[in-house]
């Protein structure tokens, strides 16, 4: 049975201008040990959804099952005891400025009531886990964003929770630091067999570390599946937008396409879409060997996910018309998605 199950979960807020339905009839299952990503634009209801999982918000209707507990019905002491089993990482870190790195990491252990000696021992392990050795006595104001989030993560896993909830954990970080923090999350997921639910508005976060993804729009989950499936075969309009934004080369747009056609007038210009397994096969070098053509890579972007590569290459094929047509047929046979941008 899945570790986390949401059944017909609904959350409404009584706002000044009437009721806001932040989460509308959400059904979801997250397996133990999984990194499950929820992606959506701002205001989609992601934060509200993830906060239902540790009772920072209480569901208006439906069941929020984690293990054998219905979080939507926990109160007082039981809820506080449950929360020790669900760590949370925040976009803006939310560290106590009045405490050092080590003291921040000690906080959840103090709250849980461990004896001092045990707390100390555990804090040392946690500092090593997140790679902050030597910074134990620094205050948050003396740390970089990435270091602050490492403290946030150490603190969130201090009580050895069953699930880790990340609310836009990397959205306040630069790309380089984002990657480091994401790697740390993968590392922790493997080392501690920790189930991670993360929400983000950035598809690259999903691509880089998630096993499964749910796409959220206007309070609903509109699409869900493994990251591979969703990238290969996005169904909903919003999903397609997210996937595309990840697969197109950064500099890609209409003008750049015209530019390519003007400047590489010879032969054919085609766009190849690689997905999953085919991305690993050397189809381009095979085509060059097999047919009497040259292939010139003009633009491209290949991305790694937890289960294979995805990407787009824009190439120019030069050669006689017959050979070119055969090469294009060859790509089709190999299952590479393609689009002819220009035909001589």
């Amino acid at each position: 049975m899945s570790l986390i199950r949401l059944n017909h979960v609904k959350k409404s807020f009584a706002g000044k201008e009437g009721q806001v339905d932040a989460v509308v009839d959400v059904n979801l299952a997250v397996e133990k040990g999984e990194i499950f990503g929820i992606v959506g634009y701002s205001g989609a209801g992601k934060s509200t959804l993830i906060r239902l999982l540790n009772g920072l918000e209480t569901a208006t209707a439906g069941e929020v099952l984690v293990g054998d507990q219905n979080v939507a019905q926990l109160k007082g002491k039981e809820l506080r005891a449950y929360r020790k089993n669900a760590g949370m990482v925040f976009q803006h870190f939310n560290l106590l400025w009045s405490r050092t790195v080590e003291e921040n990491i000690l906080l959840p252990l103090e709250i849980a009531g461990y004896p001092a000696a045990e707390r100390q021992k555990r804090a040392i392990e946690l500092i090593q886990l997140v790679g902050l050795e030597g910074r134990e006595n620094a205050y948050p104001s003396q740390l970089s964003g990435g270091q602050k989030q490492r403290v946030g993560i150490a603190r969130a896993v201090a009580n050895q929770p069953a699930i880790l909830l990340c609310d836009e954990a990397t959205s306040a970080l630069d790309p380089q630091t984002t990657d480091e923090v994401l790697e740390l999350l993968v590392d922790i997921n493997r080392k501690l067999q920790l189930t991670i639910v993360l929400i983000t508005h950035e598809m690259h976060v999903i691509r880089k570390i998630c096993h499964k993804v749910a796409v959220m729009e206007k309070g609903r989950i509109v699409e869900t599946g493994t990251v591979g499936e969703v990238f290969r075969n996005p169904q909903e309009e919003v999903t397609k937008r997210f996937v595309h934004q990840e697969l197109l080369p950064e500099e890609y747009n209409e003008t750049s396409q015209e530019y390519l056609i003007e400047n590489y007038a010879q032969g054919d210009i085609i766009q190849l879409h690689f997905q999953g397994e085919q991305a690993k096969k050397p189809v381009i070098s095979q085509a060059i060997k097999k047919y009497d053509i040259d292939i010139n890579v003009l633009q491209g972007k290949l991305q790694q996910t937890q289960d294979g590569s995805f990407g787009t290459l824009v190439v120019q094929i030069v050669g006689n018309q017959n050979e070119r047509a055969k090469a294009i047929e060859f790509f089709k046979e190999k299952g590479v998605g393609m689009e002819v941008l220009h035909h001589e």
Partner: protein
Amino acid sequence: MNKSFTEIYFDWSQLDAAAFKQAFIDTMVMTIISMVLVAILGLGLGLLLYYLSKSNRKSAKLSYTLVSIVSNVFRSTPFIILIVLIIPLTRLLLGTFLGATAAIPALVLSAIPFYARLVEIAFREVDQGVIEAAESMGASQFQLIGKVLLPESKPALLSGLTVTTITMIGFTAMAGAIGAGGLGGLAYQDGFQRNRLTVTLFATVFLLLIVFLIQWLGDSAVKRSDKR
């Protein structure tokens, strides 16, 4: 007979070291005892106001309004009037309304609401995200106060206490005028009423020195506690 300014303000024969010492002690006793009481009770009242203002319940909103009105009354009544108004209460509590200790109930009553308001503001300025983080760790209300609210608002609590204490020193001087003694009493009764302005001047200088000292102590405590 015309006296020169020097003769008026620097007539050393007027100064009595023993009287100054006693006045200084009285002022410090009034201030320190009141400060301790205000720190504790003001913190409690501030905490109450903070929680009442955060709650969405109707009863909490009503209580907040009531407590606010009462504390505004005590805060806004001119101190010199308050001290006279509560003479019966002071008598009941201490058996007298004269002397340094007798000024304490009035000092405390006017300073508690003042400090409580500063405490409430200090707590409201604690980052909501940090409070949420502690809640997500399963902190109880008690732990939240002790481990998050108080330490994270410490600089504001200390600077509020400094301001309150300095205000109270001003009030002890007023209390002195109607029989509480201290440097204020010395300045007014021994100095002004007996036309010995050198006494008034030097009592004032002493009071100012105490104010500066407290400001300096307060500022450096705030600085030391702030790691932001």
